[in-house]
């Protein structure tokens, strides 16, 4: 396969959604309206932790158009993707500011919204858990009184009753304790940052109806249509087959639309009005606070090394702020443990990764799934260790870079196929950032330029039975429809799958029609569109479906051409004889079966079916973490050059570099944009983003007026991306996943460059001029 010159794979094909999007013609979930549509709005908690003593809806009922008011006792049960610990509507108590307390259903959205302001909820405030450090103290108030009693939905989650621990994942590899004692050089450092938000352009939105036959029809902007079916079945007792989920194109997700929050609420709302179609759309402020956000982290990293800089032992304590409910934070806790060391070969590893309950908005998956967080901690420590050892930071990374033959923290053996080449990546990044010209130089009055670098890795922690399928139907003109449940959320997955199919069939992209929307009733099952897994899983399914179709095409063509299927090849819209490509039959002649001049017909439409399921993945051992959690590791290096004003601590990012080994790159342009977009996002939360809480756990910046983000035009002036392509034998055309990767190393390399500029350890995000000023003052005192 790899000897062949590809015609479409590896080419910068135009994204197939480019025209619709750039002309503004895409209809997102929130854009639909039909007569009779009802609207739901949420009453949300004004307290971060309190008992609900009463809910008075009298005044709300007086608002014209109000048809139903739903409160928590309608469904007093817990749901969740990993640990079922979250009531969809709070009952008895609230655990975060902004938590849904009631749903108003009305004829018009403004009526529902007005009515939400008239519901009087009385609270009896409880003590607040406002940080992970506080949550860990022995006498801390409990966010959940009986966490250990919650139902586990998947394995590898370990809540502890009587504590604020929602899960605790352990890695025990080698013998950390003994080896640590013998290390010639050691370092211990602490890092932290607050929760932040995805802020996808499209706020979350859903419509649900329960039709008279009992079918539950869901339209949503979700990354997980089949999980919606599962949740409505598991917790609401609707038969799986009676839930139909439709997903149009999505306006950005970044993991935030991977979990199921609004659909159960809209289901309860629809049920309260006799199954009518109800729309629930979040305002920006609700999308940021009421819907799940991104985890916070407190990390302590200990590294022990020889004088020459070879790492011997590493200990990692990660306290993930999951907010009020574990949701995907429990999975992130696990993912952070799996890759706790970063891409380094360390024989003795000890990691305690805790999912910690606080009274903050709850967190879910966010692009990188814990890796930008752990990478920040690990890579800052590597730079500080390099300084201590007086070794060049790049050299220290090369000495310790993980390679085939090494094992990961969970003791998965690495091979040339399941991990990329980190050393090639760092050498290329070193060239692009012009490291050898110096890491720091004075560039003007009060101005210094400095460079920082970060390595990173990540595996794709899917379910062990994660799968995808694809169905191809051929048109009378010989073109092909591709249907699969990979969700287009702006990452370009439909284009990539189209390219894989075009390559397999030897067709141009203009002959491939990829269905942009997803419908669970006719698209084959796909686990979810998360974890950078779609190119791999759905890509493999598309290849299988293409092979299936090719078999059919060859069979029919062999009959028509009176030869064996083995004599035939496919390409250029034809099935042709290998030794004489001019002799063949057009695909359009056989796409719907072949009809002889006599009228007799054979074979019928070509329908290709393909599927792929993860192979040989396992859960982790509870005590040691031993297991094989993911199919491959993509690795990469990021670097920035900044110019810092040493007087007022303002800075600009002059240059950003990303080098990734994602195996074969299917589309270099979309991959480049993925890396740039990822780095931009990583730099945004490294420079700007965090939720600010007051002493009552109330979020102070619930909207974009006060929640700063990097803006268009504030990206690095120079934005270089390059790829190392060490093929993965089992990936489609040698590809691994790349979707999340651009974000992972960005915060770390920025912090490294700024720390180096000032010779001050900057270990807290975000890196605002104020926080840098604070850290500099601290280091002077």
């Amino acid at each position, binding site marked *: 396969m790899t000897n062949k010159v590809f015609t479409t794979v590896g080419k910068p094909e135009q994204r197939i959604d480019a025209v619709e999007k750039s002309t503004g013609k895409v209809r997102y979930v929130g854009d639909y309206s039909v007569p009779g549509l009802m609207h739901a709005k949420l009453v949300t908690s004004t307290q971060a932790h309190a008992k609900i003593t009463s809910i008075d809806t009298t005044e709300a009922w007086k608002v014209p158009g109000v048809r139903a008011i739903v409160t928590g006792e309608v469904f007093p049960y817990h749901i969740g993707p990993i640990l079922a610990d979250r009531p969809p509507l709070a009952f008895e108590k609230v655990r975060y500011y902004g938590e849904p307390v009631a749903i108003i259903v009305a004829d018009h959205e403004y009526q529902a919204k007005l009515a939400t302001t008239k519901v009087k909820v009385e609270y009896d405030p409880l003590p607040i858990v406002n940080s992970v450090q506080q949550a860990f103290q022995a006498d801390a108030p409990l966010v959940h009184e009986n966490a250990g009693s919650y139902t586990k939905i998947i394995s590898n989650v370990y809540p502890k009753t009587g504590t604020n621990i929602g899960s605790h994942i352990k890695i025990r590899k080698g013998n950390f304790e003994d080896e640590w004692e013998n290390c010639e050089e050691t370092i211990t450092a602490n890092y932290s940052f607050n929760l932040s938000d995805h802020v996808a352009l499209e706020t979350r939105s859903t419509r649900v109806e329960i039709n008279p036959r009992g079918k539950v029809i869901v339209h949503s902007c979700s990354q997980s249509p089949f999980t919606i079916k599962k949740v409505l079945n598991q917790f609401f007792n609707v038969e799986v087959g009676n839930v139909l989920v439709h997903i149009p194109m999505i306006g950005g997700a970044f993991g935030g639309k991977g979990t199921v929050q609004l659909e159960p609420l809209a289901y309860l709302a629809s049920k309260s009005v006799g199954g009518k179609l109800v729309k629930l759309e979040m305002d920006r402020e609700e999308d940021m606070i009421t819907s799940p956000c991104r985890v916070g982290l407190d990390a302590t990293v200990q590294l022990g090394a020889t004088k020459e800089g070879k790492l011997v032992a590493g200990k990692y304590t990660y306290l993930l702020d999951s907010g009020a409910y574990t949701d995907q934070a429990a999975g992130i806790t696990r993912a952070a443990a799996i890759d706790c060391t970063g891409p380094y070969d360390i024989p003795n590893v000890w990691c305690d990764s805790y999912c910690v309950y606080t009274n903050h908005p709850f967190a879910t998956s966010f692009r990188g799934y814990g890796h930008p967080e752990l990478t920040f901690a690990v890579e800052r420590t590597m730079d500080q260790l390099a300084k201590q050892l007086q070794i060049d930071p790049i050299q220290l990374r090369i000495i310790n870079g993980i390679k085939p033959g090494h094992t990961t923290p969970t003791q998965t053996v690495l091979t040339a196929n399941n991990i990329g080449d980190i050393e090639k990546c760092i050498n290329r990044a070193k060239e692009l950032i012009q490291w050898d010209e110096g890491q720091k130089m004075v560039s003007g009055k009060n101005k210094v330029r400095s460079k920082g670098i970060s390595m990173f890795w990540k595996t794709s922690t899917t379910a062990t039975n994660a799968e995808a399928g694809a169905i191809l139907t051929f048109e009378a003109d010989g073109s092909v429809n591709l249907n699969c449940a990979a969700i287009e959320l702006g990452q370009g997955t439909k284009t990539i799958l189209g390219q894989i199919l075009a390559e397999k069939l030897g067709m141009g992209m203009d002959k491939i029609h990829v269905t942009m929307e997803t419908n669970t009733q006719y698209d084959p099952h796909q686990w979810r569109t998360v974890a950078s897994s779609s190119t791999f899983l759905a890509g493999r399914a598309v290849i299988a479906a293409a092979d299936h179709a090719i078999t059919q095409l060859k069979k029919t063509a062999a009959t028509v051409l009176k030869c064996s299927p083995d004599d035939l090849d496919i390409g250029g819209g034809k099935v042709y004889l290998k030794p004489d490509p001019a002799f063949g039959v057009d695909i359009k002649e056989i796409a719907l079966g072949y009809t002889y001049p006599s009228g007799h017909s054979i074979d019928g439409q070509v329908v290709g079916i393909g599927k792929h399921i993860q192979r040989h993945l396992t859960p982790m051992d509870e005590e040691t973490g031993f297991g094989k959690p993911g199919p491959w590791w993509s690795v990469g290096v990021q670097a920035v050059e900044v110019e810092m004003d040493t007087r007022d601590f303002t800075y600009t990012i002059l240059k950003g570099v990303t080098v990734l080994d994602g195996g074969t790159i299917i589309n270099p342009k979309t991959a480049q944009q993925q890396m740039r977009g990822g780095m931009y996002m990583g730099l945004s939360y490294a420079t700007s983003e965090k939720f600010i809480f007051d002493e009552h756990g109330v979020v102070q910046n619930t909207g974009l007026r006060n929640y700063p983000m990097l803006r268009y035009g504030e990206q690095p002036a120079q934005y270089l991306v390059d790829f190392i392509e060490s093929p993965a034998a089992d990936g489609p055309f040698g590809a691994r996943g790349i979707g999340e990767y651009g974000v992972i190393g960005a915060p770390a390399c920025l912090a490294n460059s700024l720390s180096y500029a000032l010779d001050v350890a900057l270990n807290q995000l975000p890196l*605002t001029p104020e926080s840098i000023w604070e850290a500099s003052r601290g280091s002077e005192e």
Partner: protein
Amino acid sequence: MIAFDFKYIKPTTAKEASKLFLNAKQKGNKAMFYSGGTEIITLARVNQLQTDMVIDIKGIPECNVLEIRGNELVIGSTVSLNDIAKSKLFPLLGDTVQRIADHTSRNKITIGGNLNSELIYKEGILPLLVADAKVKLAKGLEQRIVSLESIFKKQLELETGEFLVQIIVDKSYLDHPHMAKKRTKISKVGYPVVSVAALVKECQIQIAFSGVCQYPFRSFKLESVLNDTKVPVMERIGTAMQHLPEDVVDDIQGTKAYRTFVLRNVLKDILEELELTK
């Protein structure tokens, strides 16, 4: 989405606008003058503002003026921030308002709206304070022209039913040496940690501040300290910090200590650069 019902009326004369306002008030209803609408809309949609009526004054011709008339620059209250900047008629004002919000918002935000903002910043007022601007106010058939300074006490103090029609700046101020500096938390777009506008008139620096206290201000006392060139710059700045009208703001955009640090740096830059122009 704004949840409550309200009336939207767009009169074409100042008289009518005042009348609508006073009539509503008489009936016990709340009315607001409406110009760009950005603040009314964004606060209303998050239930932080409620009104029964908005009176859009953009239909009043006098409010849309932007021109030099004789010795004066006349700026209608409903002229957008971007139009002011693009006109280049008053460079200091252009520099300052170009740093308010983002480009799309500035297409809508008007100078009158900015001066009457509910927020503490109102940065558009800084160049006007240092340029000793006058304002034309209307209430019914009556119009009055007064100095901006005389009616600006932490906010514009207007009579009930009165609204800002025009801002008038003496032409001689338009090309004085000047400087506007704004520091935000991080982004180019954002509320000021410190925002300052200054110009030099007859060898004296006239300077106004936003983001430092709970309201924008110009202080003659502070100016006299800063203009005392016999004293070294850092010492003047030190003294000036003692003469701020009230405590420095301490909030999520910046702590009191940080704002003070930034203000000192900004003042140093302004004094050093503007004193060269004297």
